[in-house]
């Protein structure tokens, strides 16, 4: 039989070997870190098209982006299997709680299987709207400037319905502080 059947972690239980993965991993990608690109400008028409988008919530309710046009909207592309995405969700939750009274919305678009998202939200509930973007969400995020199809990816729409800010990779609090001012 071909080599394909032998596990790459030869000689030991693979599960045990992988326990060390976190330590080695940093070295794994270190030489490639410069590859993390800056966001690109959105494709022509992508900002207008965004307001035609419709998604379903995890409960199957319809979500239409048009409902938030004219107000500050932070769109966050995430997935349950993307560690930095999961790490930044509590910060986004706090941001939304602090600003919803001023008309802000945070929209989490899950580039993921609906079943995985539902299971995730059972243990780590979020109160801002979540839309099931599926794997097609990657295409949408690319049109909005995520040329590499990276996760997480966040976009801030201002009151004029155009993109004010984009961030490839994990947001930090200083990003959110700046974004809050930019769309105030």
């Amino acid at each position, binding site marked *: 039989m071909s080599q*394909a059947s*032998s596990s790459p972690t030869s000689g030991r239980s*693979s599960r045990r070997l992988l326990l060390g993965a976190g330590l080695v*991993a940093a070295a794994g*990608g270190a030489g490639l*870190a410069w590859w993390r690109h800056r966001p690109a400008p959105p494709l022509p028409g992508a900002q207008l098209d965004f307001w035609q988008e419709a998604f379903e919530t995890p409960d199957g309710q319809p979500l239409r982006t048009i409902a938030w046009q004219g107000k500050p909207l932070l769109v966050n592309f995430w997935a349950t*299997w993307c560690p930095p995405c999961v790490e930044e969700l509590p910060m986004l939750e706090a941001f939304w709680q602090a600003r919803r009274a001023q008309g802000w919305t945070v929209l989490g678009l899950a580039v993921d299987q609906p079943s995985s998202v539902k299971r995730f939200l059972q243990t780590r509930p979020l109160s801002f709207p979540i839309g099931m973007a599926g794997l097609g969400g990657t295409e949408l995020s690319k049109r909005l400037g995520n040329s590499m199809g990276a996760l997480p990816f966040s976009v801030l729409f201002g009151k004029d319905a155009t993109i004010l800010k984009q961030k490839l990779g994990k947001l930090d609090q200083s990003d959110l502080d700046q974004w809050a001012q930019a769309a105030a």
Partner: protein
Amino acid sequence: MSDLALDIAQTAARLVVEQGLNLGAAKQRALRELGLGSRTPLPTNELVEAQIHEHLALFCADTQPAELAALRAHAREWMLRLADFRPHLGGPVWHGWATRLSDIDLALFCDDPKSAEIHLLNLGLRYEVGTQPGLHGHPVDVLSLHSHCPGLDEDVGVHLRIYDLRDQRGALLPDAQGRRPRGDLAALDHLLAQGG
């Protein structure tokens, strides 16, 4: 087939199922367990796999099919996520003798060998880099990561073998038993549609 080869194969099969060892490691361990010298001729992978199927049917018939289905569903998710890199599923999850201890083994055929690694970085995924004997007798880089398998509700290993686009030639040639050694998303869907 000699009785000795069958003994080794049976012991190796048990080690694969109970401890999640790969075939090569299980054969070596079986020699030690049976008190045989390290130069004893080893049974073929085909023989060990046949014994694995027998062991599963005898001892794991109530659990293994569901575990295999969970791993195949999870492999499918990864194949969708990595669709740009022509993912092909191989190993026990493809061949059908995987249990919850098995890892998911994917071969990627990339235009640019660094592109898959860059993609993982862009998704914030942490992985380990290793090298294994690969197709056509050449060593191949393997990116290994943990992934939560929803159907098993535990982490499994996912191994991505990073091949060049031209390595795809011959990658689907049948093995000695006439089986395809790996399959793409369409082939996996075909398998799942048949109840696999």
